[in-house]
């Protein structure tokens, strides 16, 4: 399939997804009992106040009309106002997303840096002790309940052996760097604030590791499997028969070919990341999208839930598009024909 048609197909899918998500979430929000006006006006609000708030929110209009308004808002990039934080959802997302992305990217980098070598070693020394150990680690990663693992690590490294911080993004008292990207690591470097940099790096370690652990398992497993496939390929045998060194055979011939199918994994990893972030952030009091969405769900803050869902699915589709394109660039067969 050609590059352009892939992009076009994805964009059409995007429209589908957003429409689907909008319809699903909107329907759900109107099925669930729960008066959004009460969230705003409080437990003891009078009937008049509730009516007034409802009118302000447009909840007095017929459902169909509300949907039209919602879609119109959506098209103009307005995700509505959160009932809980009383702020524009888009603004909230812009505020909380960088923290989640910073955590997620750190976790992904960590998972790749550990998972790929582990998977490669595991495949090379198949059935050996390294392989067995790597398989245990990867299965443990895949099977680990993130929320529990987080607690365990906090107990260990924050409470019992207090060497790592257990919550938040930065040490109290150190000012957060001026917001440019919203990534503390980047912003603090830009601002030249090394203290903030080290502190936020320090705070990132535990939550990123917890989040990385699950992905690490998946990556290790995938790399191991595709390495095993590739190592059986004729061209690896050719490379060996031509006397290429072991490292050249593995790093230049086997690994690149094993990595190509693993790229698709990145798309999946993004999904897992969101999933994991929801839980990890709750445990580590990480001020990101995860804790935002959990609170939103617990309070049935529907504008926020809908906004998040739409943004997340959009992100998912876009990431997968990026993954597909990367795939195309990496695989010469598709690239040259495309």
């Amino acid at each position, binding site marked *: 399939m050609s590059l352009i048609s892939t992009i076009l197909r994805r964009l059409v899918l995007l429209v589908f997804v957003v429409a689907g998500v909008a319809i699903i979430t909107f329907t759900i929000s109107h099925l669930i009992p729960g008066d959004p006006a009460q969230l705003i006006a409080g437990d003891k609000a009078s009937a008049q106040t509730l009516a007034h708030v409802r009118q302000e929110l447009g909840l007095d209009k017929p459902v169909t009309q509300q949907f039209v308004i919602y879609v119109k808002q959506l098209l103009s990039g307005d995700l509505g106002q959160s009932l809980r934080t009383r702020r524009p959802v888009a603004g909230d997302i812009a505020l909380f997303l960088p923290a989640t992305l910073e955590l997620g990217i750190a976790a992904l980098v960590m998972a790749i840096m550990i998972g790929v070598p582990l998977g490669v070693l595991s495949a090379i020394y198949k059935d050996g002790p390294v392989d067995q150990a790597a398989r245990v680690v990867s299965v443990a990663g895949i099977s680990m309940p993130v929320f529990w693992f987080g607690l365990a690590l906090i107990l260990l490294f924050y409470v019992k052996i207090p060497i790592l911080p257990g919550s938040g993004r930065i040490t109290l008292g150190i000012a957060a760097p001026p917001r440019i990207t919203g990534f503390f690591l980047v912003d603090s470097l830009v601002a030249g604030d090394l203290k903030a940099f080290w502190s936020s790096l320090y705070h990132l370690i535990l939550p990123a590791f917890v989040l990385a652990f699950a992905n690490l398992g998946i990556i290790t497993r995938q790399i191991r499997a595709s390495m095993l496939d590739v190592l059986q390929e*004729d*061209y690896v*045998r050719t490379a060996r028969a*031509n*006397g*290429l060194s*072991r490292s050249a055979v593995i790093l230049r011939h086997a690994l690149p070919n094993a990595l190509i199918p693993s790229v698709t994994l990145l798309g999946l990893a993004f999904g897992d990341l969101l999933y994991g972030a929801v839980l990890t952030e709750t445990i580590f009091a990480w001020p990101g999208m995860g804790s935002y969405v959990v609170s939103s769900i617990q309070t049935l803050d529907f504008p926020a839930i809908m906004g998040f869902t739409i943004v997340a699915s959009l992100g998912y589709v876009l990431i997968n598009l990026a993954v597909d394109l990367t795939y195309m660039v990496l*695989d*010469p067969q598709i690239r*040259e024909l495309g």
Partner: protein
Amino acid sequence: MTEPSGDVLLEITDLSLEFRTYRGPIKALNGVSLNVRAGEIVGIVGESGCGKSVTMMAATRLLPKGAAHITGGGIRLFGSDPMKLSERELQHVRGRQVSTIFQEPMNALNPTRRIGEQIVEVIRRHQRLDNAAATSKASGLLRDMLISEPERIMQAYPFELSGGMRQRVLIAMAFSCEPRLIIADEPTTALDVTVQALILGLIKHKATSTGTAVVFISHDMAVVSQLCDRLYVLYAGRVAEAGTTASVLAAPAHPYTRALIRCLPGLAPPKQPLEQIPGTLPDLLDPPAGCLFRARCREADDRCVSVPPLAAIEPARRAACWRRIEETQAA
């Protein structure tokens, strides 16, 4: 004709080898002996599964680690035992002194790297050449393979080339470091006859012009007959017969060789039943005692319950069949 008198490059004596599997050991080789001298083209023929590839992969130690176990006999490659070489020493032998061309050209090249890169990589691995020199050497090699636009081909990825073209690239790669020995494991089986003819011609031409010895593995008697100086006929992991091509074809000494030649449809009158070898290869898990061909042999008798040695029956001819051995002894 006599055996060529060059240096012995490869000598395999009485090699037995098994693969350990869940069903028990598969006795893939049961005492193979063969040798290859400098400058000659040696053919190895036999049915599928009779151990042709395993023999030669054992010689270059390319068999999967752990699965294959040598249970007897030995190998000497350029005078040393490849099983005793270190991985590093082995890497310098492979490609530099002995290269291998495999059967499936479709998968034998790395799909994600350009042809040129792959050839240059091999050249630079074994020779002190800079990138430019190696590149020009590579394009020269490709030109030798009758590829008219080597520069374009070197920029291409394997999937852009036809099977015949890829096989030519692989041959060029095999010859790139002027090895003393090339092992060609059914290099033309997957190709069309027209392309096969071209490839065979190229191998023969290149080998004779560089003086490289070639071990040519095939299951096609006719192909081998066109190319090889000497022939080994393998059956169930043993050599059934060996000798110069002409003499083996003219007067096959082993019933197996005879049957292999006669069952070809080209030699029989049209529509008439072909001579057939009944049955199939013995189960190598549990090979029968005695001559391994006995169960399928029309001439088998009581003598065949013991294993016939590979004995000289004529100058430069050897066969592992009691009938011929005794005839020779009688003569």
